[in-house]
Every structure is written in structure tokens, then in C-alpha cells.
């Protein structure tokens, strides 16, 4: 009986560890994905400022950049929501253990 409990316990610890690693991998992927729109936003904003500083600014480019800044911010927001779902999922898992 005691042996069985120990086996169950070690199996549980192992599957928790697997789950933990999987979660970490997912979080890393999502963080990498979140970085992309941030990079784009920084680039677009810096490009717009520079384009506007010139005498012959191409406003079509600046306008396209501004539209992209908002699109990329919305993209980032969606990724954050996914991350939140993931961390919520994790909290539920942790609660279940207690």
C-alpha cells in the first residue's frame, strides 16, 4: 500500500514537471511572438518621426506607418490575452494540487 502511494506520488511529481516544462516553452514562444509587434511599433514610430522631420515628407508613408502602429498594438493585445489565459490555466492547475 505504501509502495503504491509512493509510486503514485512520484508519477504525479513527474507529470507536474512535464506540465511545467511545457508551460514554460509555451510562455517563451508567446513572449517571442509578443516581441514582434513591439519591434514593428518601435520601427514605425521612429520611421514616422524621421520622415516628418524632412522637408519633403511622404505623408502616404507616415499614414501607412500610423495605421500599422495601431494594427500592431491590437496584435500585441491579442497575444497578451492568450498569455493571460495561459497563466489563468496554470493557476487553476496549481489550485487543483492543493
Amino acid at each position, binding site marked *: 500500500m505504501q509502495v503504491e502511494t509512493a509510486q503514485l506520488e512520484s508519477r504525479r511529481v513527474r507529470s507536474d514537471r512535464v506540465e511545467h516544462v511545457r508551460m514554460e516553452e509555451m510562455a*517563451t514562444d508567446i*513572449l*517571442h511572438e509578443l*516581441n*514582434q*509587434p*513591439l*519591434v*514593428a*511599433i*518601435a*520601427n*514605425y514610430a*521612429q*520611421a514616422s518621426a*524621421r*520622415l516628418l522631420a524632412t522637408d519633403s515628407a511622404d505623408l502616404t*508613408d507616415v499614414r*501607412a*506607418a500610423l495605421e*500599422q502602429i495601431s*494594427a*500592431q498594438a491590437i*496584435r500585441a493585445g491579442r497575444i497578451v490575452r492568450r498569455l493571460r489565459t495561459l497563466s489563468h490555466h496554470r493557476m487553476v492547475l496549481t489550485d487543483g494540487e492543493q
Partner: protein
Amino acid sequence: MVHVVDDDAAVRHSLGLLLKSFGLPISPHVSAQEFLAAYAGEPGCLVLDICMPGMSGLELQQHLNFESAIIPVVFITGHGDVPMAVEAMRHGAFDFLEKPFHDQDLIDRVRRAFEKDARNRSRLRDRDRIPGRLESLTTREREVLRLVSTGKLNKVIAADLGVSRRTVEAHRAHLMEKLGVQSVAQLVRIVMDLKPGH
């Protein structure tokens, strides 16, 4: 020309606009394969995402190294890619930048990469000119060149060839002029470069 290779459309497009705002001509590519298909060895530099599906930035770098391409590579990396960036530098990357970055940091690196590319190309051009210049040397001048490049002094060369020291000096001045070099160190380098083929 700045070649930009990044699989993320927004990153690629925004990078293109940023470089354009500095007045630099750019050529965007969605993948390493697409860049390889389009690139014909023109001068410029390569701004390369390190982590891409399909052929990664590191694999593209290795491919270019294998093909002896001289285009300088500036890697752009996401956070946490530091070990990969270190590997890229070890394989001769010109520089790397962590995303996101300040436009000035990007442009500084791109400009320095352009300068590096120009230096590489001028060195290659010089090297290509050497065989023709060597052809123009007389037999005696070639002999003097060989002896000078082994580190022998003029008076020793004069004794070896049974001519006066002044004659050796004249040959030496002539051959250096014909080869377009200013120092013995440059002469030695030319002779060493020749060794494998001759």
C-alpha cells in the same frame, strides 16, 4: 542596398520603412531561401533575423560562408537568443542587435557594415590585379622580388645575384612601383598569396 530578411511581415515592412527614412535603398525578403534566389553578390549589407522557420538566419550565414560571399551580416535577435548571437559572431557575423532597437543603433551598424563591404571589395579588386602586374615584371625583377620577400637585405641580394647594391635598389623600386605597393610587408603578402597556386 540593404537586404532585409525577416519572416514577420510587420517587422520586415517596418524595418524597410525605417531604413528608407534614412534614405537607404532596401530589398526585403520573406525567407532565407528567397534571399538566396534573389541575391547575385551586389555590394551592400544583410540585416538578418536569426530565428526563422525553414532555413534559419544562422543556416543562411553558414551557406553564405560556404559560398565565400563577402556581404557583411547584421543579425537581429529576439530576447533570449543570446547564445545564437554568440554563435553567429563566432562564424564571422559583422554585428548583432537585440530587438526592439533604437533607429540610431541600427543605422550605425548598417553604415559600418557598408564601409566594411567597401573595404572587402577593394581588397578583392587589388588581389585580382596582382597576377597581371606580376606578368609585367622582368625576370630579374621577379628574382629580386623572391629574395626580398624572404627577408634578405639589398646587399645580400646584390651578392647573391652578382650585381651592385644600387642595381638591386633600382630593381626593387621598379617592381614595387609596378605592383603598386608601398612596403615590404605588402610584397611579402603578395608572394604568400601566390604560394598555393604557384
